[in-house]
């Protein structure tokens, strides 16, 4: 079939002013050198698809009226000064956190990208990274295309500088401070953590600040692929794991799930909060409501992966028979025909397991929801469920130390919740030279920001 070349887009395209555009590219050279390979890989793996564009995209036809909260029915703000002052501050925090996650995930993926066993899986993650770069670019566009002085004294250049200076360990959210141990993390992260991203972006489609609301549909289109870049390789791995000689096993996947799922839950914010965001028109769901939907979707994902595994394991059975075996083992939490619920199948940990923030922070709750009286038993229980390589990380040591300190009364819970493995929020200037900032002063005539014609 002749290649289709025309793709209809209704997005308005924006470049950042040259100083910020240059800063993002400079950051990319240090943190994402594989980006240079993207064009070649794109031709090979995504030949019919429009070329990647490092730009900000704003959807057209976004509703003009505020959809939720106290100002519902009023026009959406097009400038921060038009927002409720509390909403402007809250939104600025959301944009900075979102930007941190986008750049942070690239730093994480980059650590193990080269270790992929399959070139297609690797190309998919490379594309995910490029699209995360675009999402970070989009957030910088929001920060630098408007006057945020009603919400902060910080200058736009300093906000961008702060975001680009963050490193794994100093990002806003814990999920972006964990180092990857292998390419399994690239994939499991996409399936679990990008799924939280999908929820956050979906909730923000109603945002009372119109440029934020208009940023969400293009980001969501790309995020849908990021979830596929997690689930599809996991499906293949779950099937391959039916072979006794499999290199990536179901227990290995289970341990990766135990590493990421608790951090994913925490990305929704404290389960008891989030109403303020709804009241201010920034999101359409409170934290617990969104988290409940996320957990249900993760359950559905694991059912899908488990069924694929069981089908491959019992090739003599029909689909209906294999599905029935899985359903029986799941209900009984037992064994059937050599298939073990505990040993062979993927399960979601209890929401209280291995938590550091939110309603269950530092409560000694086990994988199946059981409570531990003895802190050392609890630390050992969590340890036994995490990936071996991850146990040697600063992150796990930091958690274990804090768990002991909170349980023993030496550290207050509120202090433990705030504690991060590396306290430096700002990691420093560009590593090219200590005196150089990511954002460089560029003469006015060389700046090139602004809207482009629609594509």
């Amino acid at each position, binding site marked *: 079939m002749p290649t289709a070349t*025309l793709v209809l887009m*209704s997005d308005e395209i924006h470049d950042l002013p040259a100083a910020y555009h240059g800063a993002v590219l400079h950051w990319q050279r240090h943190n994402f050198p594989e980006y240079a390979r993207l064009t070649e890989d794109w031709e090979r793996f995504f030949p019919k698809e429009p070329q990647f564009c490092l730009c900000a995209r704003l959807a057209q036809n976004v509703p003009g009226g505020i959809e939720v909260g106290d100002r519902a029915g009023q026009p959406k703000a097009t400038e921060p000064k038009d927002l409720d002052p509390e909403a402007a501050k809250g939104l600025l925090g959301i944009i900075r956190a979102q930007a941190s996650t986008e750049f942070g995930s690239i730093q994480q993926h980059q650590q193990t990208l080269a270790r992929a066993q399959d070139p297609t899986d690797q190309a998919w993650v490379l594309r995910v990274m490029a699209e995360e770069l675009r999402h970070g670019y989009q957030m910088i566009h929001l920060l630098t295309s408007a006057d945020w002085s009603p919400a902060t004294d910080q200058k736009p250049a300093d906000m961008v500088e702060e975001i680009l200076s963050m490193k794994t360990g100093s990002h806003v959210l814990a999920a972006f401070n964990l180092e990857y141990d292998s390419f399994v993390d690239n994939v499991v992260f996409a399936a679990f953590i990008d799924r939280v991203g999908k929820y956050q972006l979906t909730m923000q489609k109603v945002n009372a600040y119109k440029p934020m609301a208009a940023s969400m549909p293009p980001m969501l*289109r790309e995020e849908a692929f990021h979830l596929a870049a997690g689930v599809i390789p996991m499906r293949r791995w779950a099937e391959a794991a039916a072979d006794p000689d499999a290199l990536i096993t179901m227990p290995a996947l289970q341990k990766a799930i135990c590493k990421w799922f608790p951090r994913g839950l925490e990305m929704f914010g404290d389960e008891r909060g989030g109403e303020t965001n709804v009241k201010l028109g920034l999101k359409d769901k409170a934290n617990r409501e969104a988290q409940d939907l996320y957990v249900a979707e993760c359950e559905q994902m694991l059912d*899908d992966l488990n069924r*694929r595994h069981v089908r491959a394991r019992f090739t003599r059975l029909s*689909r209906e028979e294999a599905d029935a075996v899985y359903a029986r083992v799941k209900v009984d939490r037992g064994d059937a025909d050599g298939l073990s619920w505990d040993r062979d199948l993927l399960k979601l940990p209890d929401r209280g397991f291995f938590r550091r923030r939110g309603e269950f922070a530092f409560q000694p709750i086990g994988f199946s929801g059981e409570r531990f009286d003895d802190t050392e038993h609890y630390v050992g229980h969590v340890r036994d469920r995490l990936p071996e390589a991850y146990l040697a990380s600063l992150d796990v040591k930091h958690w274990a130390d804090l768990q002991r300190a909170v349980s023993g009364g030496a550290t207050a819970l509120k202090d433990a919740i705030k504690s991060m493995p590396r306290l430096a929020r700002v990691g420093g200037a560009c590593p090219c030279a200590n005196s150089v900032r990511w954002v460089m002063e560029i003469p006015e005539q060389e700046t090139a920001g602004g809207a482009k014609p629609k594509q």
Partner: protein
Amino acid sequence: MSDEVRVRPLTELDIDGITRIDERITGRYRPDVWEQRVGYYIRRDPDSSQVAESGGRVIGFMLGEVRGGEFGLEEPTGWLEFFGVDPDARGRAVGRSLCEALLTYFREKGAHIARTMVAASDADIAGFLAAMDFVPAPLTALEKRIS
């Protein structure tokens, strides 16, 4: 379980349901094929392709998208490319609901025409498409065996 049929955009979690429907229709279990296809449509435009579900189960799917430039047809065209309905769910207007959802989306994306192809021997599909007001196009599908 509710009998209500809900049509919504395709997601990566629908692969198993689509594979199951394909297996029921063709007798072949082809998870890899559907992973590739679903991955493709999600990358291209995740809002375009649709699935129908009832009682939490996928009972039909229709994959397609708006493209231009195919066969020298420059105008934006809604291409309807793969679809299937669970045999147990037939008679519930699932195919019609899916088709209407895709056509609505194609219109929103600026397409004024939808196109598809059907095997001459496939009377069921041809009948369904005719019921959806698809008519023979002034194009001829040609082929030549080269090996």
